[in-house]
């Protein structure tokens, strides 16, 4: 009787220690849900959702403080994915936060640029190259098209250029059966 008690309590102590150790060792630092939501967001870092970047918005969604329909660059597709992930009802994009636009890149008119560095400070992904009183230019491959650099420019030399379709980025269309006119 005594030995059985000892064995059982001994086991309990050992397993408890193992569990305690595992809880410390494999501690999840961040809310994994935030990471999952962040992975769906387009990383434009435009702030149209009302948060200073995609990660803060993801954190707010995870905490239930923000709705899933505040991201215009993500579009309906993004909202659908979020609703699937979070198991909530799909809802159309909240127009308060803007409309989805075709993907574009910012282009600096280098003739007009005075080199004030205001756009460099505004760019959330450090995609603008330049220095004070030097001409600035945008690294197109790294530009997310967030438009945050457009407003600060004192000489209005930044324009948004939609990315047109090229052979390299061309996609086969969803097959449609042509409907022929009667007659």
């Amino acid at each position, binding site marked *: 009787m005594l030995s059985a008690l000892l064995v059982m309590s001994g086991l309990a102590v050992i397993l408890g220690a193992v569990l305690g150790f595992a809880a410390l060792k494999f501690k999840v630092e961040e809310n994994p849900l935030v990471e999952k939501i*962040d992975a769906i*967001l*387009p*990383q*434009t*870092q435009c702030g149209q959702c009302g948060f200073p*970047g*995609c*990660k803060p918005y993801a954190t707010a969604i995870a905490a239930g403080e923000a709705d899933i329909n505040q991201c215009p660059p993500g579009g309906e597709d993004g909202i659908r994915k979020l609703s699937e992930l979070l198991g909530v009802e799909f809802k159309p994009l909240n127009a308060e936060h803007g409309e989805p636009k075709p993907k574009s890149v910012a282009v600096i008119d280098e003739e007009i640029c005075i080199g004030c560095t205001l756009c460099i400070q505004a760019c*959330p*992904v*450090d*995609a603008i190259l330049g220095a004070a009183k030097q001409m600035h230019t945008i690294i197109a491959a*790294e530009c*997310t098209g967030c438009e945050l650099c457009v407003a600060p420019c004192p000489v209005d030399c930044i324009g948004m250029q939609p990315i047109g*379709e*090229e*052979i390299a*980025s*061309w*996609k*086969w*269309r*969803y*097959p449609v*059966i042509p409907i022929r006119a009667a007659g």
Partner: protein
Amino acid sequence: MRTLHHFNGGVHPAQHKAESNTRPIVAAPVPPRLVVPLHQHIGSAAKPLVKVGDKVLKGQMIAAAEGYVSAAVHAPTSGTVTVVEMQTVPHPSGLPDLCVTMETDHEERWIAHAPLDYRAMDPSELRNHLRDAGVVGLGGAAFPSFIKLNPGPAQKLQTLILNGAECEPWITCDDRLMQERAEAIVQGIEIMRFMLRPEEILVGIEDNKPQAIAAMRAACALADFAVEVVPVPTIYPGGGAKQLIKVLTGKEPPSGGRSTDVGVQCFNVATAYSVHRAVHHGEPVISRIVTVTGNVRQPGNFEVLIGTPVEQLVQLAGGAKDGTNGYVMGGPMMGFTLPQPNVPVVKATNCIIASSQALFSPAPPALPCIRCSRCAVACPADLQPMDLYWFSRARNFGKAQEYALFDCIECGCCTYVCPSHIPLVQYFRFAKSEIWAREKEKEAADLARERHEFRQFRLEREKEERAEKLAQKAAAKLEMLGGSTDPEADAKKAAIQAAIERAKAKKAAVTPQNVDNLPPDKLKEIEEIEARRAKAKEGTQQDS
């Protein structure tokens, strides 16, 4: 006698080879204008080397390979570059791409070129030569050949296969090439043999080309190495690389893998021919043999300069007959309708078919899938097209990939047999390009996330540095006012001093050491500039 294997599936569409395979290859005349696209191969586009107004010679490189997977592009004849801009190219999208347009001078002046002594060359030098000669796979995929001619770390290959199967209906360019230029092909094979050191070399030709088989056998008999010409049964897509490998060797490259994973490398016979021209004559790829057939008056094969407008090629074949409603590049199974008839011939153009209602009647409207699984029976890649169709249609791309969508070779057998006339391959192409686009988008998002996070980190770091600087200044001021006797203040001071030391050390660590390796004169120059700068600073301080 070699025992042949067979792959599952395949279909037997009407062959239509007789229309064009009886007439010898005709050299097409030089047109007045050539439009040479700079992206004629798989990989990155070649970088243009010429500008408007440049005089170019025949065979002169007009665009150089850019990046590893790329190949050079050459002037097909001598003349003057008139335009370097975006023009419509033979691509299913109908979108424009960068092209060099040149007016030809009909003088055919060659750039200096000479045969290579390839046996004395370094293998990588030889491969670079083939890249700079613009040698790409001429079977239709146009993959740069020099990459496939690298034997890899093993330095050896089990089997080298030359693909002369030409399984698509209507196309006969490889057939005529083998009939007329078998010796040259064998010489090309000899170079490939030298580069890859295969244990055996096989030439697979479908048994509907007895003359080509005979010509190749005769040429191989003269070679001083062993090449076996193997007639393979005529079945579409028996000329697909994986299918031909299966038939000849019984080996199957793993899903998502390459043929070299099973010790086999496969080239088109026309590629072997262009390797021969590039090495034994020093001539880059500036022309190719194109079958012009279908609804034309005199179907045949033509040796055409790259950049020749398809329209003119059709004129050579006697012009299009009444009822022609478009031109298909490639075969009827895998080809696509050209966006307009004046697009240029490129390295991948093996066949131009003038289409008409009578030859290719439009598919009747698609009906629902009845899951008869005929497509699965016909699929040469052992896939289940009815399931892939279901997933692609529903945009369930993850599931489609699970069902090995990327093993689909888009041969069109499933569409061919479908009793409901569902354009299955179109769905698969749609799904594939959608998956690629999403992958690219994800990469871009990851890059943006990384850069944004680094920016946050950078801003934080700059803030800290500024705070430390301020603390340093405050401490210096305190020192100037004289130290206090208060031990508590002393401790505080010591802490501040320590912080200053830390900041200094950190600053020294982050200060770029970019003047270390400069020559003494440069250093002196920098010192002078620094002295001037200090002087100027003093001046301004005195002013204020």
